């Protein structure tokens, strides 16, 4: 399905007005224009391609349903980005819930996770095979959903503390502390993993 060139020339505001006037197809302009960015942030927060795809669809669906309340108060891209962050946060929150308790390897007083001996040596095996990305992913698993999301938005997406607070719906100071804690935890975990290699 190709979106027509005429539609692609519409700006976000015109597309929103057309959608609200009953032209459902005009929403394609917004979907095509913002999906890639939403996927990037969703993937960084969820760390999973399939979950990121779900987040993108869920965010765009929520955005469509709430389009009347948007009313052009701000930029549509910022608004839908915020919705995607919420969806991703919900997603990893649910994932955390299904995993019961996070399994950690280091002794971290701030973490509530269960400390066990990793006999399967997943990290070790991965590290030995030189899969750095997997090592980083393990390090990210030690973060809470809020810390992970705040860190991704700050470190990878380049958002300010205020933008993070707005996107996540938390006070700025909480956002700032979440970023600090995430960096501290990641440093320690990465240091530990490096020593093991």
């Amino acid at each position, binding site marked *: 399905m190709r979106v027509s060139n005429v539609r692609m020339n519409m700006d976000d505001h015109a597309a929103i007005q057309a959608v*609200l006037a009953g032209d459902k197809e005009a929403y394609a302009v917004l979907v095509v224009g913002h999906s890639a960015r939403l996927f990037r942030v969703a993937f960084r927060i969820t760390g999973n391609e399939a979950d990121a795809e779900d987040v993108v669809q869920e965010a765009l669906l929520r955005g469509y349903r709430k389009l009347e309340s948007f009313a052009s108060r701000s930029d549509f891209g910022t608004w839908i980005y915020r919705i995607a962050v919420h969806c991703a946060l919900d997603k990893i929150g649910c994932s955390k819930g299904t995993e019961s308790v996070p399994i950690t390897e280091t002794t971290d007083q701030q973490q509530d996770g269960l400390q066990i001996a990793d006999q399967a040596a997943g990290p070790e095996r991965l590290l030995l095979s030189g899969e750095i990305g997997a090592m980083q992913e393990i390090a990210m698993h030690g973060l809470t959903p809020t810390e992970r999301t705040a860190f991704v938005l700050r*470190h990878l997406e380049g958002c300010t503390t205020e933008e993070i607070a707005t996107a996540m719906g938390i006070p700025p100071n909480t956002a700032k502390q979440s970023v600090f804690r995430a960096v501290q935890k990641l440093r320690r975990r990465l240091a530990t993993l490096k020593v093991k290699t």
Partner: protein
Amino acid sequence: MIHLSEEELIAQVYGEGDHAARQAHLDQCAECSRAYAALRSDMAEMNFLEPPERDAFYGEKVWASLSGSLPAYESRKGNWLRIGLWRGLSYAAACVLLGACTFIGGRLWERQQVRHTAETNPQQKQHEAVPARTRVVVVVLGDHLDRSERLLVELKHADAESTGIASPLREEAQSLLAANRICRQNAMHEDDAALATALDRLDHLLQELTNQPGGLNAATLARLQNEISADGLLLEVRVLRSRLPSQRTAASGQTKGGTI
């Protein structure tokens, strides 16, 4: 010298807070400078989770999967029309309700006002106390006596040679005759002897005036004028009429020049 905490160093990497003051400290403190360098190095390695590239048609694929589940918004124009219709109907209903309330309120106020006036105005109260039938009789009697008085005056001053007035006098007499009988019967019923006697004599005069076989000639006119003068009928009618001033005032406005 107080060294920078890890949080402060992280804030320095992100350029938050008092960046200049911390940089000044880092320039002077070798220990903090080393820690800062190590932190920057570690954080530089945290550029992981690079998302996989999406192809150029990713957005269209997302739209293809979404479009089927999106209900179309109703046109705002339709919404405005519907809202306008409801608003119009609401205004109309409010106007009808207001009109009905005003009407009912006015009726209630009027009744209350009449009752209040009747309670506070004794004259009105007295008037209310008089039976309706009596008021009608008084009005009719007053009117009848007025007309009779005018007829008697015209008859008394009529010129025997001016035969032009004869016909109107007879017609008026004929008209008064019926009313006179009713008034006389009522006076007898009410045991008003003076009134009944006067009306009886008036009846006799009216009959003579009406039933002249050859019309109203000079001889007949002279005879009737003599009867009026001799009997003092005109004076008596005036006296009787003067007995009814208050009733007349009370009834004025209800009947004006009515004829039975």
